[in-house]
Structure formats: C-alpha cells, structure tokens
C-alpha cells in the first residue's frame, strides 16, 4: 500500500529531520509538498532568531551554587 505524503508528514520531517530518503524524494518530486517544505523551513528559521531563556542573574546564581 502506497502511503500518501501529507503536509503533516512534511512538518514532522522539518522538525524531526529523521533520515528518510523516500520521504525526501517524495517532497522533491511534488511541487505542493516542496512549497510546503520551503515555507515551513523559512518559518522555522525565523523562530530560530529568538530564544526563550532565563535571565543572566538566574544563571549566575546557579553557577555560583555549583562552585566547589
């Protein structure tokens, strides 16, 4: 049975990047899936500019506690 590749499969591929050459080939061969892949990758790339992180003072407190 041939599995139809969906946009959700493309999303999982973007985020989980599992080595799956058959999925990659399907994406490359299908214009709609390729467009989907490109758009999702661009959006993911935008989010990579941001980081959700704690303050420096919190990190310094932890590092201070970690000292021997």
């Amino acid at each position, binding site marked *: 049975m041939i599995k139809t590749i969906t*946009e*959700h499969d493309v*999303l*999982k591929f973007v*985020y*989980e990047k599992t080595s799956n050459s058959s999925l990659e080939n399907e994406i490359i061969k299908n214009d709609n899936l390729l467009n989907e892949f490109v*758009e*999702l990758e*661009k*959006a*993911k790339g*935008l*989010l*990579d*500019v*941001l*980081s*959700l*992180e*704690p*303050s420096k003072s*919190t*990190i310094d*407190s*932890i*590092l201070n*506690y*970690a*000292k*021997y």
Partner: protein
Amino acid sequence: MVKYDVSNDATLVAAYKEGSEDAFAKLLDKYKNKVYTKIYLIVKDQFLAEDLLQEVFIKVIDKIKSGTYNEEGKFGPWVVRIAHNLAIDNFRKAKRYPTIHPENEDLMFNTLALSEDSAEELRIKEDTTNKLKTLIELLPQNQKEVLLMRHYADMSFQEIAESTGVSINTALGRMRYALINLRKKFDQVNNVYDKNNYRT
C-alpha cells in the same frame, strides 16, 4: 585548559564530579533554555519559572556532588523530568489556574545574537525579534502553546498531543497553522515597513 566534548553529557558530568566548574557551565548552557521553557509552559509566570529553574539545578548539583547521580540514565531527560515534577508540584500547591500576569505578559524572548554579528546584523536581528515577539503573542492560544512546546521546549509532537489532550494530528495542524500564519504576517509587516520607508 581542558576542552570537553560538549555533545557528551556523561563526559561533562564526570568532569564536574571531579571538580570542573567549566564542565558544569557547559551543561547548564546546553539545557537552560529547554528546561526554562518547559517550566514556563506549566507555570505561565516567567519569574516563578526562573525560581524553579534555580531549584532544578540546585537538585542536579547536589545529586552530582553527593556522588549518587546514576549515569545509566541520560542527563537531559533526567533534568527535564525534575523540572516537570517541580513545576507540577508548584502548580498543585498554588491551587490556582495558571494565568499570565499583566505585567509580564510578554514572553522574555531574547535575540539569539552570535558573537560574529556586526552591529547592523544585530540591529536587523533585534528588529526581527520585536516583530516576531508581537506576532507570536497574537497567535491563537492553542497555536502559540504548541509552537512554544515544539520549537522552544523541544517536545515531540506525540508529547505535545498527550500534554494538551488532543490527537497528534490536531497538534500537528496547530503547529502548521502557527508557522504558516507567523510567516505570512511577518512578510506583511515587513512589506508595510518597506513601503513606509520608501514613500515619497
């Protein structure tokens, strides 16, 4: 100066056990954002998340220093588990539904600046940060939640589905819409900005 393989947590933990504070700093740097985000997603209060983050790593430090840390488990999942349990315990003790306080509604997103960024590149990144931050806040709550869980807390789609009580397809759908909406709106905002700059 001893260089450690930062990809190998076991090496770093062993080095810290032997007294290398630098090794611990590397471990902390590797996991701080993911653990912080996981806590924040439960408690929905960035100041409380910071306090709990400290508690998590105090437990981690005490466990390693005492020699009772069991190397059979992986370091990363272990720390995340501690964080999850602490956050849930705190939530239960508080006995209140978590709400975002008005004064700290904005997530503390920072710009991921690289040391080799020029001043202009940094300005562009900060501009992008401000726009993205606004756009993320404007996403529907369920899309924002999935986006934060997947992209910043590094949870799998399966974990997100279980955590939010929806099917994996629903979780995937929300994430897909979040990314597509974000990208479209970001392009719109940038186009408006460019048109305004070039108006005569």
